[in-house]
């Protein structure tokens, strides 16, 4: 028997089998493995996103549960820095403060709440105009967008004690009033005139989530 022919057969057959095995590995098994791996990665990524989203939902739900308390804070802040000039309340509050100090309304010689200007009061602050970007004052940009300043001037007459009481009442207004200058002068004994300057502020309202569409 010729050993070489059998050997040739085994050799050719073996090579063919190895070739087929390798081709199968490279063109059938590996691409499928890669695809399975890719899908697995996508799934893992989706799972990670879902875990993150779930934790976000937990945190946001906690915030949502605390909304009543946060609304109270927002309401209290809106009293300090209201959303509009709210002149009626301002005039009434100052007249009441003077009255509590024993100063009649006729004792308030002048009361001038200026129109709100964008930003914190400074030489760069300007009145807002329709369609124009708000001017930025000394305050940072975000503040300048959300905050406007109303300059308040007040002149009143009364005794020194009444002037001090008036100052105290103005400092204790429910609306924040930053007094920046006080001039007290006495034209005649026991009778003083106060010239007061200060700022009240208007803040852009914060949108309540309850008013937004789902």
């Amino acid at each position, binding site marked *: 028997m010729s050993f070489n022919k059998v050997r040739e057969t085994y050799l050719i057959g073996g090579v063919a089998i190895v070739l087929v*095995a390798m081709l199968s590995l490279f063109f059938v098994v590996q691409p499928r493995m890669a695809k399975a791996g890719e899908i697995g990665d996508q799934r893992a990524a989706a799972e990670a996103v879902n875990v993150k989203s779930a934790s976000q939902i937990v945190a946001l739900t906690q915030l949502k549960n605390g909304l009543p308390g946060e609304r109270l804070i927002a309401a209290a802040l809106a009293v300090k820095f209201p959303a509009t000039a709210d002149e009626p309340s301002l005039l009434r509050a100052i007249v009441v403060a003077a009255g509590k100090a024993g100063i009649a309304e006729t004792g308030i010689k002048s009361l001038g709440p200026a129109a709100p200007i964008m930003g914190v009061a400074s030489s760069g602050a300007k009145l807002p105009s329709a369609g124009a970007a708000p001017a930025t004052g000394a305050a940072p940009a975000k503040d300048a967008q959300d905050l406007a300043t109303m300059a308040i001037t007040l002149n009143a007459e009364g005794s020194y004690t009444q002037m001090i009481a008036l100052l105290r009442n103005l400092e204790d207004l429910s609306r924040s009033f930053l007094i*920046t200058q006080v001039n007290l002068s006495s034209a005649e004994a026991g009778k003083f005139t106060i010239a007061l300057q200060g700022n009240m502020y208007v803040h852009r309202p914060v949108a309540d989530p309850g008013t937004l569409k789902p």
Partner: protein
Amino acid sequence: MATSRTADKKGLKLSRPSKPTVIIPFTPTMPDVNLLPPRVFDAVEAAKARHRLALAGGALVLVVAGVYLAQTAQIMVANRALDRETAKSAALEKQVRNLTPVKVFYAGVSAHKATVQKTMAQELYFSLVASELSSSRAPGVSIDTLTVATSADPSAAAATASTCPAANPFAPAKIVSCVQFTGAAPRRENVAAFLVNLHKNPKFANIYIPVTDSGDAKPVTFTGSVGVTEAFYTGRYAKDTWLLKDVAAK
């Protein structure tokens, strides 16, 4: 006999004495003669080899097909799981989107609060300044004018404060505002007592009266200034509890 032959073949040494030799009777058979040529045997061997290789190939195909099917099943399962996760993602994202305004609201309220705190940080109790200045007066001393100013901007406040001269030029106190005042007193001794009283108040600093004049109507008039220290800052907006009262009132 057969046992004996087998044992001999296997080389076993039996202890028993060997049996007498048995003569196998001759049986006539056909002679075993192989007349096939070697190429036939080669062909047979080659056919066997091909058969084995075909079996191996078939087994390989089966293995590959099995792996393919297993992978297909794995991919199907993974695809289903991915679909489930994707669907879950969409639902969760929708929930997050719906809840986002809540987060925006909290951020807005927080920013509002910070703005109020920052804006009102320089707030002074002017009523306290005026009342403590008045209560420091010595007998017979009157205050006729008083001017005090501050600014929402801390650097501007420092500039205002720098206009208040210090009695001790070597160690001027840190002040946040300067009160300018004029007044009258029967004698300069009363003005001196007023100065002593002002110095006793730790909330005031850089106290100085540079001018005292004598006239007919009021024996002594004076002009002076007193520095207002940080003790007059209200500081109420910096406290954690500054909004509690207002919130409780709601």
